[in-house]
């Protein structure tokens, strides 16, 4: 088991390394006009070359890549932001935004995941019943209506109803309510959907019939056998849901002026802030891969049939 984990971790590092190399090269294949904002026209060719030289963009790409990796590994220095927050270390730019996204995200997951799973369980109890119909309707509407639309509507009318400020303020607890509710909605939907599906799968199994024959009461069967077994595949999602809060929520953060991580990557790419893009890519891919690894480990922990060994997980 330990050998397996070590091997997975090493492979993860290799994956992240490959990703960062690809992104690094891609960034440098974009047209250079983007580095100048609107000033491209105002400069002579010589001046442009000078600025590019100072940004370190005139060296051949492999040399640039080598320097970047060397700096990263020996000094743990990911560089300074060049456009988003000029001359601020990218780690600071990121570190200033991570806590707020994680806070909102964790609360939403903590509320939304149990609620979603509960909804999924209620939906599965009676096929075609009230809960099932209501829950399916909810998931369908949430998927059909584009997120920006319902989110803006919630913001405009919800703040009126609650008497809350339209955007988030640090000193107003009331202003956190609507962003969190909005974040919970898709979380509830996806958890309910999958939970219901796994529950229905379980209910139809032979060993559930055996439990009935064994004279186990129905409610006990429902929770101790059906639910307990259905949760197993759900656990695969849990680590990534928690770690994924670091990615932020781009639409909600934009609407509510939450200074989080969502949108930072896009803004960085558009602004051609290479150092920040690279740092974010490393971070996001590492978290994603690590989240998947944890998910697999969690499943192995919870499902005794899964034995992780060198040949790869039995899934």
């Amino acid at each position, binding site marked *: 088991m330990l050998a397996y984990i070590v091997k997975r971790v090493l492979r993860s590092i290799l994956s992240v390394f490959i990703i960062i190399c690809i992104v690094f090269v891609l960034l440098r294949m974009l047209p250079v006009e983007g580095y100048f904002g609107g000033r491209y*026209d105002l400069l002579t060719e010589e001046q442009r070359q000078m600025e590019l030289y100072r940004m370190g963009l005139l060296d051949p790409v492999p040399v640039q890549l080598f320097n970047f990796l060397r700096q990263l590994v020996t000094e743990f220095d990911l560089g300074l932001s060049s456009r988003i927050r000029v001359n601020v270390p990218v780690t600071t730019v990121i570190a200033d935004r991570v806590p707020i996204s994680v806070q909102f995200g964790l609360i939403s997951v903590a509320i939304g995941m149990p609620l979603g799973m509960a909804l999924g369980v209620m939906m599965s109890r009676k096929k075609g019943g009230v809960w099932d119909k209501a829950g399916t309707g909810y998931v369908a509407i949430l998927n059909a209506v584009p997120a920006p639309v319902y989110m803006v509507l919630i913001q405009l009318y919800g703040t009126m109803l609650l008497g809350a400020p*339209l*955007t988030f303020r640090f000193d107003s607890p009331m202003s956190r309510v609507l962003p969190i509710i909005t974040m919970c909605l898709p979380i509830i939907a996806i958890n309910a959907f999958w939970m219901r599906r796994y529950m229905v799968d379980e209910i139809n199994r032979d060993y559930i019939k055996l439990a009935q024959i064994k004279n186990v009461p129905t409610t006990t069967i429902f929770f101790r056998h059906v639910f307990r077994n259905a949760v197993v595949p759900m656990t695969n999602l849990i680590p990534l849901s928690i770690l994924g809060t670091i990615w932020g929520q781009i639409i909600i953060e*934009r609407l509510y002026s939450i200074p989080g991580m969502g949108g930072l990557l896009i803004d960085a790419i558009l602004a051609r802030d290479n150092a920040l893009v690279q740092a974010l890519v490393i971070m996001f891919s590492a978290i994603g891969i690590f989240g998947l690894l944890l998910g697999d480990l969690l499943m192995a922990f919870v499902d005794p049939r899964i034995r992780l060994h060198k040949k790869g997980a039995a899934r």
Partner: protein
Amino acid sequence: MKRFLKLITAAVIFTLAFALFTGCARDEEPPAPGADTNVSAPGQPPAPGQPDAPGQPDAPPAVVDMTGPHGIRFAQEQVLHFVYPTEMTNLNPFNSADSLANSEGNQPGSESLLRRDNFGLLSPGLAHSWEVSPDGMTWRFFIREGLQWVDHQMNPVGELTADCFVAVMEWVLDPEIMSVNHHQFHPRIVNAYELWTGAITDPNLVGFRAIDTHTLEIQLTSPIPYFLEVAGFQPAYRPFLEQHGMFYGTSNYTTLYIGPFVLTEFIPGHMRVWERNPFYWDAENVHIERAVGLFNAEVNVLGPEMFRRGESDWAQITSDIVDLWLNDPEVSHLVTPGIPDHSFQWYFMFNFDPQFGPEFEPDNWRLAVNNEAFRQAIFWGIDSHRALLTLDPFNANLYLSNTITPRGFAIADGVDFVDMAPLSRFHQYPNWLHYPARALQFRDQARAELTAQGATFPIIMKLSYNPNTAGWPLEVQVLRQQLIDLLGADFINPVIQTGPSVDFLTAVRRQGQFALMKGNNGSGVAPGDPSAWTFAFSRSEIDDSWIHWSRSGSAETQRIHDEYRELIDHARTLTVQNRERWQAFNNAEYHLLNHAIVRPFYTIGSGSFVFRYNPFDGFGGTGPMVGWVGRRMLDHPLTAEQWTLLHADWEAERQTRIANTPAIPVGNW
């Protein structure tokens, strides 16, 4: 069951660890956000009994009369709330030229030698007066004495001297720092370019030095008549600047303030709080105590609603909701038009060197565009008023223009540039140069002449547009239809082509991929000087004019081009900013329009806005992020009626001020 409990415990520990780790991710110790939103004022004036420090902060403004002209009433609490969609990337006023968000954002905390008053006219800033040498090559600025630099907590840190300006020059021209403001210094100032490229390393060789503690002397490479317009040099406190080097301006506590406000709180991507700086030299004219800005990327959608709820004091009512507002009796009386911004102009331009594909018949176009009658037909046939209605259905007349140079942009000796002959002749046409009868005349003439040259009809005219620009897609449709209706589909066939939304100018304008297109430029290159509107048609370094008319291949067009160059070159030699210089530029522009090389369109600034302050009060602009000096918040939104009256007052006063502009003193040294 035991297994399950182990699992739950592990999950809880893991989550807590993760939350803790990310929560402790910040290394530095900035002031806690949101903790202290009151006026934090450890920066007390020197306690009594201490020797009088030169930087005495001014007393808070005296109680003012709570009502203003035309029935407006001022608010008890003078706090400005605004929302902004683009975050600043740095807090360094002399590294902000690349972005409007930065230059606007850094404005309240800084000031330069001169400042603009609420009429947009230059007036003394940190320099109380100035002189120019008789040959126009050297300027001297006299800096106010006794002004204090303060930090973000309003603690005085040091005195403002002329050396502060020199410190900025050295910082900006430092090759290691890569400041985007370097254009301010070269090529105008002696040896500035050499310092920036590293050809010389001694900053003392640059024609920008402090000849005593409060006198700054600037030497130019050649006389610039409009130099005061571009003399917006800003200072920085040298010891602080050296301490932080390239990290100056990376946060509100690595910046010092000399302007009317201090940035006491700054959370990038969330909010900023400016508080009135009692140490500012003109603090008694600053009535706003605090300005709170919220960042929101969706300001178009949320802005108007925030204004309604009192969470912001300004909003732009965009064209998709302006109808809603005008039909809502609660708010319809609050919607005011935008003030024309004469620093940016749009015009229609022909392309004389077509590089587009054969489906648009470039050779045919080349014949047509070089025929003056054809151009004149288009010139008088375009109905720019109708086209602009797509962008602003209500106040289009405020923005349309009969000339390339905007009205109100350049005024000398009491006369506006556009009202000088021969250019003023274009004002006699009533409908913004739309003259159907004349257009038809020229059309017939063009048809005859072009048929003789072997052109085919209808002439295909490629109309390109950038789909990302608001309103342009609709506008180009209206233009096309209107030309067909007037000139006939058998004469002209305007074909609309969507341009790429990325790098539009490179792909379309520079590559000559259009026949007729709306073009623009700003006056930043020569503010307040008519030469600003000539660069699009005659670049001086590389003749890469935007209409490519030096490569037209037609002798007639070449002649017109050469004549224009002659007029421009002559005008540029007149280095004193006065009527003679302007007359020369006036002649050049008349020449351009007379031969229908370019067709004027409109100036920016259109839109509908709502205010909770009088926009005509503020020194430096009418928008929510500028012009806080002199401005007063109202306790009610401004009505359109009040706006009209105030605007009329403002225009009248402005004319008077301009007529009485003093001449620049000439130093006798």
